[in-house]
């Protein structure tokens, strides 16, 4: 709030705010809305970058929706309903024409998430509960920034749950990543791979070996690691296929392929994928989806976080919608209705359907 007050006192003619309300309490946000409206009334231009529909409803005269670096919609604010905005924000899907994953054969829950609450500076997860059977794919839809990433990190055991538990195959895995209990059985594809999935200071060969790192011999042989890396990079089409390169030398898309090669090339019990197709072209995205569905066919529980609603509607067995850290509802694919999902994403109609 102090930072904001300083900026607002600068007497600037153009004010740009990037996700200003993400660190504010609702009451502070209300005051900020007041400031913004005052600025506008004084004839100043205000650009408010946000993913919160409440910010838009409170302040905006005009709305521009950006997705993947492009403007996908621009209109006066009163001409767009929250549902229409969500529709524009989440995209239409990148991949068609893959075989639809077969329904899981068993209904015994393998992954149980019970009353999970977690918080990491701002984004959060509130009382999330669901169960997944072996081979089941749960799509998690929603406008990004509504707690999906924190949910993924909590499921992967990287962020401690403040309450609740994550049980995989009868074993609690919440906040236990570092003791090695789950390093072998969980595959995790985080968002922003350079920050969250690789060590920028290490080369690609070592980055590819990380999931096996604890089982490497005391003195790992460099050739073994490099040969394994070369095979993986060829299979997953990581370019350039040079294991000695540093991780920061790869493009975003190739880095994502590298992470997928590491995480999905071995059999996992739980796959957590955060926007796995982000930054990939259609062919690469298809390849990623195929690997993910193959894991499901081999009996893994798949938690698939995506903004591409059509992809989720085509391939996920069930779809949950996250808004403001909570799950608004979970539906089976057959019963899913875009209108209902859209309302949930906009934060309306919890417990509907």
């Amino acid at each position, binding site marked *: 709030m102090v930072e904001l007050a300083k900026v607002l006192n600068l007497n600037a003619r153009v004010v740009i705010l990037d996700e200003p309300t993400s660190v504010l309490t609702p009451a502070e946000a209300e005051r900020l809305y007041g400031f913004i409206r005052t600025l506008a009334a004084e004839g100043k231009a205000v650009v408010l970058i946000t993913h919160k529909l409440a910010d838009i409803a409170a302040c905006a005269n005009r709305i521009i929706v950006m997705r993947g670096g492009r403007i996908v919609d621009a209109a006066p604010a009163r001409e767009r309903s929250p549902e229409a905005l969500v529709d524009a924000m989440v995209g239409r899907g990148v991949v068609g024409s893959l075989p639809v994953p077969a329904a899981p054969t068993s209904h015994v829950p393998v992954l149980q998430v019970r009353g999970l609450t977690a918080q990491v500076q701002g984004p959060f997860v509130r009382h999330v509960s669901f169960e997944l059977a072996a081979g089941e794919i749960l799509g998690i839809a929603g406008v990004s920034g509504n707690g999906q990433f924190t949910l993924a990190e909590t499921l992967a055991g990287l962020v401690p749950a403040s309450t609740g538990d994550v049980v995989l195959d009868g074993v609690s895995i919440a906040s236990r990543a570092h003791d090695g209990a789950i390093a072998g059985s969980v595959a995790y594809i985080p968002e922003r791979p350079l920050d969250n999935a690789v060590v*920028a200071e*290490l080369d690609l060969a070592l980055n590819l070996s990380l999931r096996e790192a604890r089982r490497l011999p005391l003195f790992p042989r460099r050739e073994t690691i490099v040969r394994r890396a070369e095979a993986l990079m060829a299979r997953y089409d990581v370019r350039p296929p040079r294991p000695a390169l540093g991780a920061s030398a790869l493009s975003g898309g190739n880095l994502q392929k590298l992470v997928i090669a590491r995480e999905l090339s071995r059999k996992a019990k739980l796959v957590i994928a955060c926007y796995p197709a982000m930054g990939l072209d259609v062919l690469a995205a298809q390849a990623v989806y195929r690997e993910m569905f193959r894991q499901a066919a081999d009996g893994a529980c798949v938690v698939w976080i995506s903004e591409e609603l059509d992809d989720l509607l085509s391939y996920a067995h069930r779809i949950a919608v996250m808004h403001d850290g909570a799950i608004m509802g979970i539906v089976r694919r057959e019963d899913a209705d875009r209108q209902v999902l859209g309302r949930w994403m906009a934060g309306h109609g919890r417990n509907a359907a």
Partner: protein
Amino acid sequence: MNPSTSTKIIAVLGGVAAFLGTAAIFLAAIGRPPFATLMQMALYAFGDSYSLSESLVKATPILLCALSVILPARLGLITVGAEGQLYFGALTGTAVVVSYPAAPMIVLMPAMLVAGAAGGAFWSGVAGLLRARSNVNETISTLLMNYVAVLLVSYVIYGAWKDPTSLGWPATIPFPKAATVPSVFGTRAHAGLVVGIIAAVILHIAVTYARWGLALRVLAGNRKVASMAGFDFNRQTLLVMAIGGALAGFAGICETSAIQGRLQAGISVGYGLTGFLVAWLSGQHFLRAIPIAVLVGGLIAAGDALQLYAKVPSASATIMQGLLFAVALGASGLAGKRTTRHG
């Protein structure tokens, strides 16, 4: 950020030249012939076997303390606690000697050395535990614990452990022969130096080629990814702090036993801090720390000799040491900047 070899060489040569230049200016300023005095210093440091042995005596604790800083640095931890660990190791090692002064060498010597290393490991491990459990900044905690350790040593040598026959001089009983770390190469340089060099080589191999080194690099690089790989930051924090502390504690008990021959105040003339600076000069590299520690040891020894024979004030050696560090850090900083700009 990866300085090329030529840039490194330029940095080293530039640093040496800049050091000689500033040292000459300083000597001229205090009214000494700069060139002759510098030549004399080189002779006092490495000119004959006696000078060389004195330089190695100084280099030994500096090297061990530098290693105790480098290992935590590989995990991304910055510790400045070598001085306190050295004192605490001296304290715990001496505890064995004053308790069983008549024990045979085969028991007393290993017990004393192990107790010294364990004391250092404990002192450093406390800071490691605070960091692991409560996220207490290890730089601050090690810094503050330095004072505690030094004062604890004062407390025992003025009190319970004071030698009644020492006529009021605050020191413990002289160490018996069975508790005197042997010297090597027929000089005053003692076995601690050999241990330091072996430790540097072992640690270098371990962090460069072993799986453990990968764990440290991953943990230092990206804590979250390290978690995914199953590496535990807290455990490694405790481990590197304890190993580092053991080395510094070992330096402390060796210094007490081989050089002082008793526990008294001033066993270390800033070896901990000097070790910290050597660690930084070496770029947190175990092997590079060896020659740098010897050079710095030589500078300190030469300073002592200069004070004795050339009647240069005692502070001037410290000043020249300060000049060396300032110039060397400045030179490597400038070289790094150059590389960043071009690369």
